[in-house]
């Protein structure tokens, strides 16, 4: 052999004969997958998964781990393989993970519409979607390790190097479908998958309630089919919650018995199920957060009042805090319910509480309550207590006005003696002459109802009187404006009398009495039209005069007008119209019950794998 060939030959020979390093398929022994994930070290978690995959022993848990990594990195979750689908426990965890991912998509989509950048508030996504929560950089390769660059070649004695896990949550929106509602219904379908496998899953049941309420609360243009579908979902969610109780273990996930009751109440309200709503709201009245408790009390009272369940509405007789925006409305419903139940003392007591230092004109509920108080007061004779109560209903400066208003209510209630007793002193007390016509009008009507013709004539005289001094001072063309207020009161009195007379019946004495008063109306109207033809109410009085004349049985003018005039006066329909004192329903405050969202729907395995422990959130204290 030539010397130049010795060396290669020797090398080959030595390689063939000696113990070279055999090629083996052994990888590192690792079955701790999730520790790094709990410690928020994504790169290490990714590395652990890669090691499993490299070792040719990946199983359902490896695939599940990869899905957790995708979730943490906002990537689309891969569909389950047959390996995962055949492992019941891993599959159950996977389904939760898919649901959490879908919830995130939905929250992001909803926030995009509402411009709420804090879409992840109160959920695990404050951590999952955070750029800084996870460590994404790979650990440095140890000195005794060789790092091979990426290659298609696969050497079994190599294993994957740690690598960076880039932040990809900025691309989350790319995964959204065009129709936001689709995201909701997809999420609902995912909850259905979970509940089919485990019908007792409280966490998912509660989440379903949140989900369907988000659909119903959302600013969506739901067509009939989808609305019906949503309402069916709500009914299903409510039924689920009715039969479950939140155990203490879910306290941290914001599922407490309070949360349960809040959700049940909201669902029942959405479903227009007052019985379920009041029942659920009753559970909340001792909520430790005073705002929540008061909101629940208000809603319960309002619903009961609207349903006519006055016993329920009257039951909550303790007023809310005065600073509460619901104070007035709550007190109105409670007090009003007491009144309907005949609990006059409790009603007046609550009214006094509400009206004593509140600005009544600004609030429809206080205004309505005030009217109901007046109606209640006129049931009693006027005494010191009545006057004291009137004093307490507002500032002292407005007492005369309140007395006059009470007198008018007394007239409407058919208590002319009460009206008279209240209004008569006002003639002496009232220093503003502009208010006197209204008082005379009240007293005139009281006299009419008491059949006191003399007093009636006196008060009507005060309304129709034109003093010579004023006549000479006020030009004719300005008199209509000057006397407008007084003339309007006159017209009001005469206009009010006709329907009152119609209610007297049709027997002999009533007809006779009616004729007496019709004559008076005709005479007063005739005299006024003659003396003050320029009055702003001339047209009204002419109509009234004509109508009263037509009703006269034996008055020659009435008869003549009746047979000679083909143009009858305006038709007059007599009767009683009952107008509710309550403010319109849309003026009632409609506070929303709110609660913290479920923190996490996840179940995260705790090493070793397969796990004996599942947790809902990261456990950063897990030992590496």
């Amino acid at each position, binding site marked *: 052999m030539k*010397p130049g060939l*010795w*060396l*290669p030959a*020797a*090398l*080959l020979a*030595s*390689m*063939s004969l*000696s*113990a*070279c*390093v*055999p*090629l083996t398929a052994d990888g590192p022994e690792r079955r701790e997958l999730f520790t790094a994930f709990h410690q928020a070290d994504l790169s290490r978690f990714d590395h652990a998964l*890669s090691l499993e995959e490299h070792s040719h022993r990946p199983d359902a848990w490896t695939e599940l781990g990869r899905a957790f990594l995708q979730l943490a990195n906002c990537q689309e979750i891969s569909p389950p393989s047959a390996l995962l689908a055949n492992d019941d426990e891993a599959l159950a965890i996977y389904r939760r993970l898919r649901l959490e991912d879908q919830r995130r998509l939905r929250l992001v989509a909803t926030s995009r519409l509402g411009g709420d950048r804090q879409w992840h508030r109160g959920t695990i996504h404050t951590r999952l979607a955070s750029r800084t929560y996870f460590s994404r950089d790979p650990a440095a*390769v140890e*000195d*005794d*390790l*060789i*790092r*091979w*660059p*990426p*290659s*298609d*070649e696969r*050497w079994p*004695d*190599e*294993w*994957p*190097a740690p*690598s960076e896990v880039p932040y990809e949550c900025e691309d989350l929106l790319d995964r959204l479908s065009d129709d936001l509602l689709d995201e909701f219904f997809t999420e609902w379908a995912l909850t259905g998958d979970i509940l089919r496998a485990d019908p007792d899953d409280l966490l998912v049941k509660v989440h379903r309630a949140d989900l369907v309420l988000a659909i119903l609360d959302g600013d969506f243009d739901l067509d009939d089919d989808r609305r019906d579908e949503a309402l069916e979902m709500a009914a299903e969610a409510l039924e689920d919650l009715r039969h479950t109780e939140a155990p203490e273990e879910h306290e941290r996930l914001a599922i407490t018995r309070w949360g349960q009751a809040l959700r049940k109440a909201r669902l029942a309200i959405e479903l227009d199920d007052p019985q379920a709503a009041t029942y659920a709201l009753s559970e909340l009245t001792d909520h430790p957060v005073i705002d929540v408790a008061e909101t629940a009390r208000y809603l319960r009272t309002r619903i009961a009042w609207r349903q006519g369940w006055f016993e329920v509405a009257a039951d909550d007789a303790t007023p809310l805090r005065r600073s509460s925006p619901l104070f007035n409305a709550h007190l109105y419903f409670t007090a009003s319910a007491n009144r309907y139940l005949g609990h006059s003392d409790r009603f007046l007591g609550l009214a006094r509480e509400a009206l004593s230092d509140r600005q009544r004109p600004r609030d429809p509920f206080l205004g309505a309550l005030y009217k109901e108080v007046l109606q209640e007061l006129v049931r009693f004779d006027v005494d010191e207590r009545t006057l004291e109560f009137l004093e307490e209903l507002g500032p002292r400066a407005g007492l005369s006005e309140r007395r006059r208003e009470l007198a008018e209510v007394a007239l409407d209630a058919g208590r002319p003696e009460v009206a008279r007793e209240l209004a008569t002193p006002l003639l002496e007390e009232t220093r503003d002459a502009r208010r006197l016509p209204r008082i005379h009008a009240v007293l005139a009507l009281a006299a009419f109802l008491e059949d006191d013709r003399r007093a009636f004539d006196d008060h009507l005289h005060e309304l129709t009187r034109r003093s010579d001094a004023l006549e000479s001072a006020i030009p004719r063309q300005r008199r209509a404006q000057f006397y407008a207020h007084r003339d309007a009161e006159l017209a009001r009195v005469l206009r009010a009398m006709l329907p009152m007379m119609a209610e007297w019946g049709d027997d002999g004495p009533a007809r006779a009495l009616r004729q007496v008063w019709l004559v008076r109306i005709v005479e007063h109207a005739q005299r006024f039209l003659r003396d003050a033809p320029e009055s702003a109410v001339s047209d009204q009085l002419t109509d009234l005069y004509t109508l009263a004349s037509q009703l006269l049985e034996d008055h020659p003018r009435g008869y003549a007008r009746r047979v000679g005039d083909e143009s009858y006066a305006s038709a007059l329909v007599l009767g009683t119209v009952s107008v509710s004192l309550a403010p319109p329903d849309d003026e009632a405050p409609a506070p929303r019950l709110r609660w913290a969202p479920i923190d996490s729907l996840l179940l995260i395995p705790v090493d070793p794998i397969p796990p004996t422990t599942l947790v809902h959130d990261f456990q950063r204290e897990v030992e590496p």
Partner: protein
Amino acid sequence: MAMRPATSLTALLILAVGLLGSLEAAADDTSRATVQPRFAEKEGRIAAHATFVTLFRDDFYRTVGYGADVSFFLSENLGVELRGHNFHSWLSPTAEGIRDETSLIPDLRAPDALFTGGVRWSWGYGKVLTLDRFVVHFDPQVSFHGGITLAERRVIPTVTPGIAFLTHWRHGIQIKLDLQWTAQLERRQRGWTPSFGFAPLIGVGWSPERRLR
């Protein structure tokens, strides 16, 4: 820097002369980098090799030798080394014919021994799959030695730059192939005369697994 050589000896040799730089560019960027433990670590370890060497010069001599070297690596990349060779030289058949006919022998003396010291730099790490079964791990290296050659009472300054291929075997055994060039400056009858040659060397040695420091 690590590299992945081709799977034939020829390719190994090509790698050894540093022509493999372009292989990395062909790697799939989407694949994941991999790691593996060094089959043998050098840092802080001493290694000793028995060597067999031959020296080629256009000098009418046939020269083979044997010897030993001892190295110590300060890091995985850089080591220092001492080396000694004892040579056996004989005239080539051509030179013997000239000597027999003319009684002339070459002015250049036959080398008897070589003693050098120098540094050795591992600039990469590689492995090669052989026979689809065995993996040989190796370090491509460059070395630079300086010393003296003893040649029939002459002392000749000598430097030997070279490239090397150090393979790691089980139990700390190492086999290395050094491809050295020699440059010498010899004082002949016509004065100081440079001469150049090539000295491939194969060494078999051992490095204990325990570090010295």
